[in-house]
């Protein structure tokens, strides 16, 4: 408690230290929450180990499903197994990272039903920031490991002309895709204020989106291109960047140069997400009592 009180006093002396101190002041409570959550989640060792192992297994099973299909065919929608491994790696790494940091906002319906959301309104912080920083889903760590492994293998087995630009492109794509998926979680949570009981409806977009992200988008028909190509820009998270990177032709409505616009997809998702969240919060009338 003592250093919490001193922080603002120290910050007053210099301009650059003000920014740093503000960051530190913001980080300190989040760090306290994170350490407590990490301690809580790791306290049941057996259960936590099983969770970590299950996350790996889910990733492996999804890879196996792709592998089973590719046993009999050389290419699906213009992507061979090497290219689809890269799509899977980017999609899974980005989704699991988003899930680790903000995935728990999908527990919102539980707070809504129990009426415990009202407690968050009493604290002097934005509701969304509180919900996001209230938890970290540590068991997703191993899932990110599966994604990163697939990504590394995918980068190794594909014929990529390495340059600083390619490296920068990959970093931007991973960042943008993670933000897109995080925005998707937040948008889904905003809609929960209206749905409450029908949370599976948003699962169609969030988890359907994760499944869609690992597919070659070129196999989709027009309705799916409209839904997961543009309205919910899932094609921009992995498929389009990969065809842009490998110099492959895209699909009819999804030309490969769109792969360079992955950050735009993140911006679009977050615009929709924040609008959905604002509308949802304003719609909420309280849990009663």
């Amino acid at each position, binding site marked *: 408690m003592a250093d919490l009180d001193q922080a603002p006093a120290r910050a007053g002396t210099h301009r650059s230290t003000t920014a740093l101190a503000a960051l530190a002041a913001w980080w300190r409570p989040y760090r306290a929450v994170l350490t407590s959550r990490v301690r809580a989640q790791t306290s049941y060792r057996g259960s936590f180990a099983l969770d970590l192992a299950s996350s790996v297994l889910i990733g492996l099973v999804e890879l196996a499903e792709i592998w089973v299909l590719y046993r009999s065919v050389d290419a699906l929608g213009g992507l061979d197994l090497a290219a689809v491994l890269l799509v899977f790696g980017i999609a899974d790494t980005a989704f699991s990272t988003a899930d680790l940091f903000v995935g728990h906002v999908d527990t919102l319906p539980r707070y809504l039903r129990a009426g415990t959301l009202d407690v968050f309104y009493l604290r002097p912080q934005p509701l969304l920031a509180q919900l996001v920083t209230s938890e970290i889903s540590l068991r997703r760590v191993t899932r990110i490991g599966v994604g990163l492994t697939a990504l590394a293998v995918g980068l190794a087995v594909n014929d990529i002309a390495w340059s600083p630009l390619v490296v920068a492109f990959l970093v931007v794509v991973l960042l943008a895709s993670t933000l897109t998926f995080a925005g998707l979680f937040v948008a889904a949570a905003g809609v929960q204020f209206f749905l*409450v009981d029908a949370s599976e409806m*948003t699962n169609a977009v969030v988890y359907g989106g994760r499944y869609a992200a690992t597919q070659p988008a070129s196999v989709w028909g027009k309705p799916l291109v409209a839904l997961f190509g543009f309205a919910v820009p899932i094609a921009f998270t992995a498929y389009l960047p990969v065809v842009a990177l490998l110099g492959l032709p895209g699909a009819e409505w999804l030309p490969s140069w769109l792969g360079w616009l992955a950050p735009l997809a993140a911006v679009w998702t977050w615009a929709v997400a924040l609008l959905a969240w604002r509308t949802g919060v304003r719609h909420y009338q309280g849990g009663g009592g």
Partner: protein
Amino acid sequence: MRLSPGPQRRGGVAGTPRAWLRVHGRLLASGFRRGAAYRGAALGGLVANVTFGFLKVSVLTAAVAAGGGELGGYDEAAIVAYAWLSQALLGSVNLFGRTDLADRIKDGSVAVDLLRPLDVQTATTAQEVGRALFQLLPRGLPIIVLGVLVGGMRLPTDPPTLALGLLSALLAVVLSYLLVYLVAASGFWTVETRGLQVLYMIVSGFLAGLFVPVTLFPSWLYALAVATPFPSLLQVPIDVISGRVDGAAALGAVGVQVAWVAAAFAVGHLMTRAGRRRLEVQGG
């Protein structure tokens, strides 16, 4: 508190076979009505199943097209039927491994269930199957209609095939609950079964053929899958309903389902008997 095997278990309301049937029929009906109460959830489930259905259909038909119009014995019509039928059954066949009973064992309220003059296994099975059968109306039928209208799915409609298909689907629903019951009943020993439930969800979906038909697996993986009850949850009913397997082979496939139902029931029965001696509920 500890529960000793109650002498009242065999007597009471479910003493005679007729009374047993009447009570379980009522439980089935109450489960059906309970499913009907959550309309929003049923609609949400339908939207999710349909979305995944479209994604599955596109990737599987692309695989058939890439294979030159045929993939492991599936042509385009057969794979479309596979994708939509699996989505239609998904609302009723429990592949998630979750059940209310697991929570009741964890928080101890199962003690109340054990005091009732009814067998916990058969009573919860009747309720859950009732609930699952209701899901066929809002989640199963619309997807089959969609598959026929949009996907161009064709299903055999001659009465014997239809009847056997319905029987196979019912057996899959019952078997799925009897298997999930085993996951929940292991809570008599471990209390917390979430980890096991997640593991069940991953393995059962894959080996049942949720995303890729089991028949496309490489031979060693196929042998592994058919040694488990999981193909009887999706692959078998889909094969029988779609007419991909017919005649004696279809009867044999349904026979395998019956055998797995009997085995899962027997194991669950033994676990319930051992578990009620083992159960310890804290507090009181």
